[in-house]
Structures are given as C-alpha cells and as structure tokens.
C-alpha cells in the first residue's frame, strides 16, 4: 500500500513538472517580438527617423521606381536622412520609398497607403521589412507588377546598404506565401540586377 502511495505521489509530481514545463515553454515561445528565427534588432520606437524635409545630415540614396516602359526598375536619387546603424537606416530608406512622389515618367510600384510596420536585421545580414496588408489588398496583380513591387523594396535596401545581402518581406508581421500569387516571399531575396535599367539618373531635390 505504501508503495502504491509513493507511486501516486511520484506520478503527481511528474504531472506537475510537465504542466509547469508546458506553460513555461508557452510563455517563452510567445516572448520574442521578431517573427523570424534569427536574432534581430528592432528600430527603437521612440526615435523614428525624421522625414526628408527635416534638418540634419543626409545620404544620397537610390530609390527604385518603375521605369517609363513599366517593365524595369530605375534608381532615382533622393536625399534620405542619415541614421544611426543599419536598422535605422533601412527604416529611413523604406519610409522614403513609401513616401516618394514619383518624378515623371517613373511611377511608384508600391500600392498607395501601404505603411511600414517594422524593420529588422538578422546577424546573417538579412533585412526583414514588415509591411501592412495594404501592399497585398491594394496590389493590382500580374506577375510583372508583383516583381517590380518586391524588387523595388529589395533593391532599394541592398543597393544602399551594401553590407546587407538579402531582404525578406513580411506582411502584417507574418511570413507570407506571396504578394499577388506569384513571387515566393517565404525566403529572403537577393538583389535583382536584371530588372534594373540605368538611364540618365534623375536627381530629385527634396520636396
């Protein structure tokens, strides 16, 4: 009888331990803010980079827009605030790309109203760009247009941040299958030089 009691006690202890382990794990798993497995750094929310009109040092950046024929990307030069560190600089570049009024004859490839939710950088030099769902819901579709949208983001970041190697686009904080049904967004993407056309690059003064 005593043995049985000891057995029951041991079982109860094991069950309690298991329960603690499960709930503890659950909390641990909920903890990371970043949606990727890689260690990442997030832009401090308290210090958003200032807009292009603000005072302070600037860098000349190439922002990629749809070319005149609508089948390539053109790097348009624009002043973007200089930011401390890769993450903040990537965020400044993305905000400039989302806010740009495309100079004729070029056009923006990103649906109007798309907002930036966050930027992260992994220790494998991958940039993660988190956009809100507008980029998908307002997208006109078509694989050419989807390629231009994806690679205007990828190329803008990788051309201006040469130490970075790849970019992955997240939508609403989630890894996404694709934007408009074609391009595979489950992996980080490299720069696409094949899409870039280099005409006389127009310099745009800050508006």
């Amino acid at each position: 009888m005593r043995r049985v009691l000891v057995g029951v006690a041991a079982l109860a202890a094991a069950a309690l331990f298991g329960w603690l382990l499960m709930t503890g794990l659950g909390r641990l798993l909920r903890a990371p803010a970043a949606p990727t497995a890689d260690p990442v750094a997030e832009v401090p929310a308290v210090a958003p980079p200032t807009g292009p009109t603000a005072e302070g040092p600037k860098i000349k950046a190439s922002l990629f827009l749809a070319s005149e024929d609508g089948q390539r990307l053109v790097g348009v030069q624009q002043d973007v605030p200089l930011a401390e560190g890769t993450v903040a600089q990537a965020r400044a570049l993305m905000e400039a790309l989302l806010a740009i009024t495309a100079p004729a004859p070029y056009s923006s490839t990103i649906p109007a109203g798309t907002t930036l939710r966050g930027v992260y950088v992994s220790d494998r030099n991958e940039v993660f760009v988190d956009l809100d769902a507008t980029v998908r819901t307002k997208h006109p579709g078509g694989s050419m247009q989807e390629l231009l949208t994806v690679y205007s983001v990828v190329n803008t970041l990788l051309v201006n941040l040469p130490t970075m190697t790849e970019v992955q686009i997240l939508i609403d904080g989630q890894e996404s299958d694709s934007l408009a049904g074609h391009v595979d967004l489950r992996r980080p993407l490299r720069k696409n030089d094949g899409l870039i056309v280099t005409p006389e690059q127009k310099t745009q003064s800050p508006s």
Partner: protein
Amino acid sequence: MRRMIQVLVLLALALVAHTDGWGQGANPNALTLLSREGRRALPIVVINNQDYIAVDELAGPFGTTAREAAGGLTLTGRGRTLILTADQNLVSAAGRLVSLPAPVVRRDGRWYVPLDFLPRALGPAFDLRLDLRRAARLLVMGDLRVPRIVTRVDSGSSNASVTLEITPVTPATVSAEPGRLVVQFDADALDLLIPTLPQQAFISSIVPGDGNTVVIATGPRFASYRSSSSQPDASSSRLTVELLPSTTDLAAAAPPPPLPVDIRPSVPPTPSTGLRTVVIDPGHGGDELGAQGPRGTLEKEITLAVSRRLRTLIESRLGLRVFLTREDDRTVAHDDRSAFANNHQADVFLSIHANAAVRPLIKGAEVYYLSVERADAEARKRADDAATTLPALGGGTRTIDLILWETAQARFLEQSSQLAGFIEDGLRARVGMSPRAVQQAPFRVLVGANMPAALVEIGYLSNPEQEQQLTSAAYQERIAESLLDALVKFRTVLDRTAP
C-alpha cells in the same frame, strides 16, 4: 486503495474515450456489392470519420456466422475463420495477421469493420476476389468487368464534347435515341465518375444508365454527334463524343466557329519515352482573382479557358495524358499545384497566367522559369552532398536519396530554361512577345515542381487591346497552338535524354 485507483483509471479512460468522440453520423450512402448474382446494398456507418460496415450485414452476401467470445468476435464461413478484437487494427484472417487502417469497433452489441476489411481480410480468407472502388462506393466480387470511367465535358461556342477515359481498355458503342445518346460498354457494370456540367446548351445531363451504359441527355442546341476512340496507353482507352448543332444553327451563330477539333493525331503517334504526362496549371482561381483588365476580364477565367484548349490540343494531336490542377473556379494552394504535378508524375509542368502592368501600353507574352535564391541553393547543396541516413526497422541504418520539396525544381533548371526557349519561339511566331520575353524569377508555384517547369504569361490584361484578344476564342487557340509547338520540340529533347 487499489480499488480506488482502479476506479480512477477507469474514469480517466472513460473521459479519454468521451473526448475522443465516437461521433457517429447516419450516412445515406451504401456500399454496392456487385457480383454475378446481381447488386446488393450494404449500409455504411460513419464512425470517427471512417466508413464502417456492420459485421452482421455480411451474413447474407458472404454466408458468415459470428460468435462473440472473450472480448473478440469469431467470424466463420467457407470453412475459414477470422478473429476480430474490439479497438484493434489487427485481425486474424485464416491464420494470417492483417492490418486495417482503422480499428474494429463494437458498440451497442454490434460489431463494425472498416471497409478495407472486405478486400484485405475477408477476400483473401475466403479466396474471393473483392475489389473496393472507394470513390464510386462499389465492391466488385469475382472477375466481373467493371471499368473505371472518368468523364469530362468541354464546351465551345459551337459544340460540346464528352471525353470518357476508360481503364482498363473496354470496347464501347454510341447510339442515338430520341433526346439522348447512349454509350454502351462491353462490361458487367461501370465505376463511373461524372463531373458537374459547364454552362452550355448541348447536354442537359449525364447519368448512369442500366448496368453498363452511360446516358447523355441532349440539350436544345444538339442536332448530331460524332464519336471517336483512341488508346493513349496500354492500360486505358478514350472515347470522345462530340455534340454538334444543326448546320443552320451554325450559320446563324454570330462568331465564326473554331475549326472542329482534329481527332486524328497530326504528329505520328510514335510512343514518346520522355514525355507522357503534362500537367497544366490554370493560374489563380476561386477567391484569388489574379489580375483584372480595364473591362473587368478576370485573369483566373482566361487562364482556365486557355488551359482547357491546350489540354484538348495536346490530347488530340499528341495523345499524351494531360491533367489540369483545377477544372473549375476554385482556390488551389501553390503547394497543392506543384504537388498535383508531382503526384501525377508529370514530365512537364506549365503554369498559365495573364499579366498586368501599371502602363497600359505594355503587351505581349512572357515566359518565366525559376531563379534559385541563396537559401534554396544552400539547401540543395546540403541535400546533394549528404544522402540522408535513417534508422531501419529491425536495427541498422539505410541511406536514402532525399529530394527536398523546397528545392525540387533546382535540379531541372537547365531543362526548364530549354522549355522556356521553345515556348518563346512558339509564342513569338503566333502572338508576339513583350520586350522582356524570357526571364527568371523566384515564382512560388515552380519551386516544388519535380520536373521541367515554366510559367507562361500569355499577355497583358492591363492593355485594352490585349484584354479583348485574350477573351477571343481565336486568340486563345493561337496561344494553345504555340504551347503545343513548344511541347513537340521539347519532346525530342526529353526523348534524347530518356533512358
């Protein structure tokens, strides 16, 4: 104390059994037993989402007697014995252990066995040939000839055709009766799959007739028919019944009708060793509309129409097996599309799309094959470098050649690029290309395809002129012809490299 623990254990078990849910729903369907003696319906009971049959129902058709003893059921008949145990997947059939996909169930004094019990355990024990046709809910006993018939309906503006794929090869005759066409097979019964009919006025319904016939009830536009048969491979035959309007009706029809489909193979039907099966993927579908033209034309509709035309062309001219990843307007996940091609062991995978751009002037077709990103390349290298070693049953290990789902297409890039080149040639000759004719892109649907694959953008819906073209039958036919040309060329490449 011991008793208390026993009670607790029983309570816990009862709780587990309860939460597990013996969800039993009445199923109006029954399993039809086909034998020399005729048909007999055996009621199907659904337990835990599995189809079961009550053991006492087997007494009539199979002459079994059941005796319950010591938690088991002994089933005897024809001098053989089967032993069933409640909640066990294993049954003993004439001394041999047989595994079932679901356990034997005893409830309310009745015993139930999963349908697979019949062909796997009962048939072998009783020396009976039992063939379970799950989709048609048929159990065929003995050497009855019950061919499997998969029916498909294609409709055009001036005709409709019914294609019947028959496995194994079975002779059939078509005869016209008032208001209907009757297809009679040289068989004892039919295992028949009939799809939902597309909108058209040639066929009002397709239904199973008596025993070995299929009845095509004709619609208001039907005037005459013609039928042809072919044999795409050794194991199956194909019967095509084309329903035609009257000639006056044809003349009155506003758009000129497309040429009747040429049933005779235009390319000598030399058996190809490298190209036997083609899977065509009509892009988007269901909730996923794809691109949209200024007049409202939806990409998902155009891609399906062109895919259907291409299938008809390939089947009739090349005699290959062709499957579409979707037959109607439905949402299909990317992975399911390439998995469909892999499961059908396709030799070529073609994904059909229509394009869109912000500039309405852009037009022309484009062809894409996969570009491999770093992560994929690394994964592939890992897979190629190290064959995976797995522990084997009974000790030891075995080495397997692992093909990562994510990198399947990487092995076929060279052939895919050749295929893309042939498609470009074909499209350039008939419909014209955009300035960016062939490109590489990380397209989701191509990644998992374990065969040469390309994504074809057949034109720009955002261009008003091209939107109009893409909706016309003649233009769609030209696209299908271009892709057929490409496949003919690619076949010679595959035949050269085939073992």
